[in-house]
């Protein structure tokens, strides 16, 4: 079966003096959970942003769901089918109430309101946040915010999850909660994390970003 997301010799920099990715190639197969390792600033988040077209490569090709993707228009479909969880949940949650935030994605997809309401309730139940519908997002704890952010992504029923440090800054209990949730999900994933224990229990493959290059890291 074809790969879900594929990078071919992708290069990217934020300016001539700062090469970030050089000649990066990888492919994400269905139901694969790919861990992305690397030091701070090595380009892991950049790689995720390239995959959904928030950034565009200087050279090389990106394909998603069997189609080459190059311009902004191509990525609208990719963003619908690939859900991205941001590092800072405050960036992701912008609606006043939890229900409105979870509903934002499905409403953008043009789903009827009754169905959106059903999806919202169901998604919140799945992440263990039943009854949180009318809570105010900015008054939630860090762990709850991360769970709501995950719910907003899952509500779009994505085929691939791109997770940028899903447990960063969370306490032990909240991390465990996220971990158990992710382990249950059927979707293919690209995971950026520094938490070795976490990756050990979830990832099926590992890659390391080092000086802009992707190296296999399954032995680590």
């Amino acid at each position, binding site marked *: 079966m074809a790969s879900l997301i594929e990078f071919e010799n992708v290069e990217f920099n934020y300016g001539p003096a700062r090469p970030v990715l050089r000649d990066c190639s990888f492919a994400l197969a269905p139901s694969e959970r790919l861990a992305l390792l690397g030091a701070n600033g090595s380009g892991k988040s950049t790689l995720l942003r390239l995959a959904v077209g928030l950034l565009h490569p200087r050279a090389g090709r990106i394909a998603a769901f069997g189609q080459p993707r190059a311009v902004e228009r191509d990525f609208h479909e990719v963003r619908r089918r690939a859900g991205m969880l941001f590092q800072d949940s405050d960036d992701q949650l*912008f609606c006043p109430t939890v229900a409105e935030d979870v509903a934002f994605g499905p409403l953008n997809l043009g789903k009827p309101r009754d169905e959106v309401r059903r999806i919202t309730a169901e998604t919140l139940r799945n992440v263990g946040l039943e009854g949180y519908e009318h809570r105010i997002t*900015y008054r939630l704890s860090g762990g709850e915010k991360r769970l709501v952010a995950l719910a907003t992504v899952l509500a779009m029923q994505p085929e691939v999850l791109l997770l940028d440090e899903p447990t960063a800054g969370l306490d032990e209990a909240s991390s465990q909660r996220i971990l158990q949730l992710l382990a249950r999900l059927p979707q293919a994933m690209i995971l950026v994390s520094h938490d070795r224990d976490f990756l050990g229990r979830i990832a099926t493959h590992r890659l390391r970003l080092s000086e802009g290059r992707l190296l296999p890291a399954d032995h680590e």
Partner: protein
Amino acid sequence: MVTQPTLLLRGPSLVDRIDPRVRVLAAVVFSIVTALLSSLVALGLALACTASLAMVSGLRLAPAARRLAGLNGVMLLLAAVVPLSVEGTALFALGSWTWSREGLLLAATIALKANAILLAVLVLLATLDLVVLGHALHHFYVPEKLVHLLLFTVRYIDVLEQEYGRLREAMRLRAFRPGLSSHTYRSFGYLIGMLLVRSVDRSERIVAAMKCRGFQGKFWLLDHFAMSWADAWFGAAAVAVVIGMIVLQWRA
């Protein structure tokens, strides 16, 4: 910080049962008509009606009084100054300064208007959740950009305040004490500059996150408002009051 609308009311209230759109419309029409009136009797009716609405809906006394006190401080100042500049029957004089009766009446009209409008806005609008207010404005075809601006301000003012607090604390931890020095001004300049830079950064990340969830420039609202009999009664009462005010003005 934004006052929580619920803190203005003593428990569940009558105004909660009125559709936000009706409340916005009533407050706007009432404010405009009140601002145009000049008859003391008509203005007295306006103030009496808003005051009774405030009582019936259980507006908390302390926060309402604080706001009214601020306004009436300015009104006292007006009462002292306006009679000086209006010609008419002299009430009393101090040297070359004379306070006129007409001027005092004018100051009283202004005070009545201001209090009536402030009370109406307090009961009808300030008790609305800002988000609901945003949605109601959307129904009145207020430009989408302005509504979004309001909604985003509500959501992110807290984040910005926290960011400011963190930076300020970090400054304090390095023994920063504000004083009358160029060092203080420069440091506060840096603080504000850094807040701006971070806000721009954050707004870019927010837009990115929204795009990832299929945002293409249009907001969809999850909740719809629904009219009820309470709205019809309230609307009829509001119309009657406004007409009464206009009739009193016309006969005066």
